[in-house]
């Protein structure tokens, strides 16, 4: 791993929601073109971590952030344009949100917001993103119909297509598979493996097996603290540095 370039560097990150501490001082590095899985039980701060990276935490009332997150060495909180920052990051959240627009407009929303107007360019981009999200074949004949009328699994893939539509350098997936059937999950996982050559992927997942299948490295969060981060060989080897990690991965936690 020595020659991997650091993409995101998180140091001493603390997040408080009013009185409640969500993250209690986390430091970790995420390398370029890797898939980093983040596992951990509920309330361990996984989603909060993602929100800090793209600064949507600022929309949460009462949230306070200490510590730094750097992308390519640049502190995200000192970046001139937060919109520029968010365009560099694709986000997929657990429950799919189809915008009340046509399928085409759903995917073209972000490029348009970024100022891309050319119809050809948009067409090409929309097709590429929908293909990447394994949705193109199902919707190519009805791009004008409403995104919100798709089934739950299709909407989740639409969300993934939208997250890719602004051609991000980093893709964050927060438990993307809970609304998707296993077959589609596999197809999306294949897509992620392909995307790895181009972008950095952070995969928050409740499925330990998914982390094992996909990730290069896995981080284990518990109650807002980073218990362990290491390559998958170590984490899933049966001899991770930490006993708690071992228990969680084996499913005998608590």
């Amino acid at each position, binding site marked *: 791993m020595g020659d991997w370039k650091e993409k995101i560097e998180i140091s001493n990150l603390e997040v408080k929601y009013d009185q409640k501490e969500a993250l209690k001082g986390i430091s970790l590095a995420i390398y370029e073109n890797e898939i980093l899985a983040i596992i951990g039980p509920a309330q361990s701060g996984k989603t909060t971590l993602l929100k800090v990276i*793209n600064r*949507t935490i600022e*929309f949460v*009332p009462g949230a306070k952030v200490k510590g730094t997150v750097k992308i390519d060495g640049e502190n995200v909180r000192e970046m001139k344009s937060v*919109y*520029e*920052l*968010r*365009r560099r990051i*694709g*986000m997929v*959240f657990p*429950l799919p*949100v189809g*915008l*009340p*627009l046509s399928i085409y407009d759903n995917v073209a*929303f*972000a490029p348009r*917001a*970024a100022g891309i107007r050319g119809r050809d360019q948009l067409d090409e981009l929309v097709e590429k993103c929908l293909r990447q999200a394994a949705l193109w074949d199902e919707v190519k004949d009805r791009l004008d119909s*409403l995104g*919100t009328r798709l089934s739950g699994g299709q909407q989740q893939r639409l*969300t993934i297509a*939208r*997250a890719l*539509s*602004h051609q991000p350098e980093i893709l964050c997936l927060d438990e993307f598979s809970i609304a998707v059937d296993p077959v589609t999950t596999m197809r999306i996982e294949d897509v992620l493996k392909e995307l790895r050559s181009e972008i950095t992927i952070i995969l928050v997942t409740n499925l330990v097996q998914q982390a094992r299948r996909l990730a290069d490295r896995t981080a284990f969060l518990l109650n807002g603290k980073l218990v362990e981060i290491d390559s998958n060989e170590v984490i899933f080897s049966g001899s991770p540095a930490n006993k708690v990690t071992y228990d969680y991965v084996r499913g005998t936690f608590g």
Partner: protein
Amino acid sequence: MTGQQDTTIINPNPDSSGKESTSSEKGASRSAILFTDTPLVRRKRLAENMAKGLFFLMTLLIVIPLILIVCYLFYKAFPVLSIDFLFTNPARGMRAGGIWAALLGTIYLVVISLLVSAPIGVLAAVYLNEYAGDNWLTRIINLAVVNLAGVPSIVHALFGVGAFVLFARMGRSILAASLTLAIMTLPVIIAATKEALGAVPMAFREACWNVGATRWQTIRRIVLPNSISGILTGIILQVSRAAGETAPIMFTGAVFYKAISEGDIFAYGLFDQCMALSMHLFTISTQVPNVPDAIPYGTAVVLLGTVLLVNLLSIALRVYLRLRKKW
């Protein structure tokens, strides 16, 4: 036997209790007994039917007076109702003629007041709902909006006299009266718009922000298109209020009598005084002796008709925009 039980279980008809009791006699199975009427079930059903009846009665109570009023108005107004009644000025000290000056005055007042209050109200609501954080200032503003909506119209009238007629030196004029009406309708428009904006799920906004859209892009492309029906309904409903109020315009611009050229829709200027339907109705029913009965009723019918027409428009608009609503 099993088949028979199944039919009793899935049978939603409460009158089938006889059949159920026979099946329970025959088989005495526990599931069948569960579905026969116990005294408790009967009591609850009685209570439910009574409640339903009561609610229906209350609904009727709202509708009946409305229908009676409309019928009575039309019956009394029948002798004067004609196109000429709309388009001629009052004559012979309001004892004859039509209501043209008052009708046009009301239209002027309502349109100008909405031209002022709708943009201000909608933009203020967008700011309060989409941009403003939760701090003491916005809380005070929200409180002020709610309280302003509850201020009696006569108080608005006094404010209008002080602020527009005297301080701004507009004099008693259509402009001053319209602005007073605008101040009166503003808080309700803000409240209705905030309501409509708040009904757009937060998840839509977050989805937009996550792909790097600015707040304005989010509002423009997602929030406004999905709340426009509620916003327009809120605005249009204020038309009826602005048209019906007498107090705010009495001291600020409406007059007892003013003759204008008949059929000319530009007969009033901004700084003219004007007649208005609500005020006209008030004066001819209380201040002028020996007015033929039909004229005040005719005026009321026109006022009501104008308001109903606008409400119909709002319903039509709402239906049309609902059809386009996408979630």
